[in-house]
């Protein structure tokens, strides 16, 4: 596949494959929508009334979550992947490791994101 450009779907429109998570300090993360929907909070925000009427882009603002703990954001994204991978799976589910030093922050984020 040399010479082929790899393209990604955008964050816009009802069939968007990706969603943009915008944290409180302005940092943006683009995540596959299927994985982001692991979070009940994100799911609710994206399916709220007027979402598609008012905006074309699937963007979610988190005014309460800063990105100053990058490992936390990374862990969240990894968890979304883990959840999608192993939901309704008949294979053995491995333990998802959570480093103790970010456990409290992750606990609070998980509580907020309902996941």
């Amino acid at each position: 596949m040399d010479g082929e450009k790899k393209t990604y779907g955008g964050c816009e429109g009802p069939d968007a494959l990706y969603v943009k998570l915008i944290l409180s300090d302005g940092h943006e993360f683009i995540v596959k929508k299927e994985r982001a929907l692991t979070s009940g909070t994100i799911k609710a925000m994206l399916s709220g009334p007027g979402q598609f009427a008012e905006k074309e882009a699937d963007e979610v603002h988190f005014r309460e979550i800063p990105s100053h703990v990058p490992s936390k954001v990374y862990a969240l994204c990894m968890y979304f992947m883990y959840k999608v991978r192993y939901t309704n799976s008949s294979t053995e589910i491995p333990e998802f490791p959570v480093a103790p030093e970010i456990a409290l922050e992750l606990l609070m984020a998980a509580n907020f994101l309902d996941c």
Partner: protein
Amino acid sequence: MSVRTPPRLLELAGRSLLRDEALAISTLEELPTELFPPLFMEAFSRKRCEALKLMVQAWPFLRLPLGSLMKRPCPETFQAVLDGLDALLTHGVRLRRWKLQVLDLQDVSENFWMVWSEAMARRCLPNAMMNRKPVQDCPRMRGQQPLTVFIDLCLKNRTLDEYFTCLLLWVKQREGLVHLCCKKLKMLGMLLHNIRNILKTVSLDCIQEVEVNCNWTLPVLAEFTPYLGQMRNLQKLVLSDIDSRYISPEQKKEFVTQFTTQFLKLRCLQKLYMNSVSFLEGHLDQLLSCLKTSLNILAISNCVLLESDLKHLSKYPSIGQLKTLDLSGTRLANFSLVPLQVLLEKVAATLEYLDLDDCGIVDSQVNAILPALSRCFELTTFSFRGNPISMATLENLLCHTIRLNNLCLELYPAPRESYDVRGIVCRSRFAQLGAELMGRVRALREPERILFCTDYCPQCGNRSLYDLEVDRCCC
């Protein structure tokens, strides 16, 4: 292979935090209030005793509903909770946010732990808080003792289990600091000697419901009665299987007097259930005269009464506003049912549930109660199974229920004509008569649920039913 779901991140992060108890403890001060319930659940299920102890001290709610977590009590975790409480009570340790005043050991249906999880998920904290049932209260909570422990006691073994023993000892040793509030007490098998020790530890005036079903004799019941008299706030009393055989009539009268006079003190009593209580025979008047409150529920089931006892039923104002009257299994054969008619007239405006199953009522007695029965407009459930009445009487009875528009459930006996000379039900005849009766009822009104039931099968112990089709015995 079964399909599984990965654990939630909330659970995983909590688990990781608790693996290092020192770390978990150091984070308690900054842990948001809403995260206490899930973290506590995790610590409890994984027996992180040190973390539990500290979490109890830092608990940011008025109440810790431990009962609903303790399906199978674990001594270590329970002791950790008590140790945490001790630090608050005896050492005066108070973390900044400590609000805990109530340890709730009742197993209540309202699940605090799930409610908090759902409220978090819906992000509707204020609404969730308002829709919750009000927290259990006790007037003594506003007294000198800083901690109240709510517990329901079900004493069914000969001796107390380890968990109760631990709790009672702990409470006894903290007299003045802990108020043990038991609202429901069931005695289902424990010796009175052991029960006495428990009754000395709980506050008797907190008890609202008592059930006695230990095959006590009347003398043993009489020993219990002083405690009964101290249960000033008792609302419900269930008494089952009290044996008064082998007692002289004079002794019986004395014991019955001891027991019934306690009712003079029970000014909150609303529900009285007596099942297979043999001393009532000839003494119902004595009991009813001591009732000083208006009962909602009166059940005298599987008892032996005299005809004179029945006459007293309608005399007393305390049973003039009944919602439930249950005389099932109490033989009324050969009695004049005029007193029952008088009682039904008195309670016609309030009666919702009437059970006259297996009273041995025959055709000639039924007419006495029909006029009053037809005016019990609030009746929702009427049960008349096991009374040997004829098809004609049953039709007449059904005619008198035309205007009982609130009836939801009606249970009638199979008419006598359903049985052969040996008393064995003839199924085809039963089906035919059932269909006729159903047709008659439908011509008069539209019943919500109506069943015609045979006597108990001597082999399988069940009744056969006629609803829309004939049900069959298992045998």
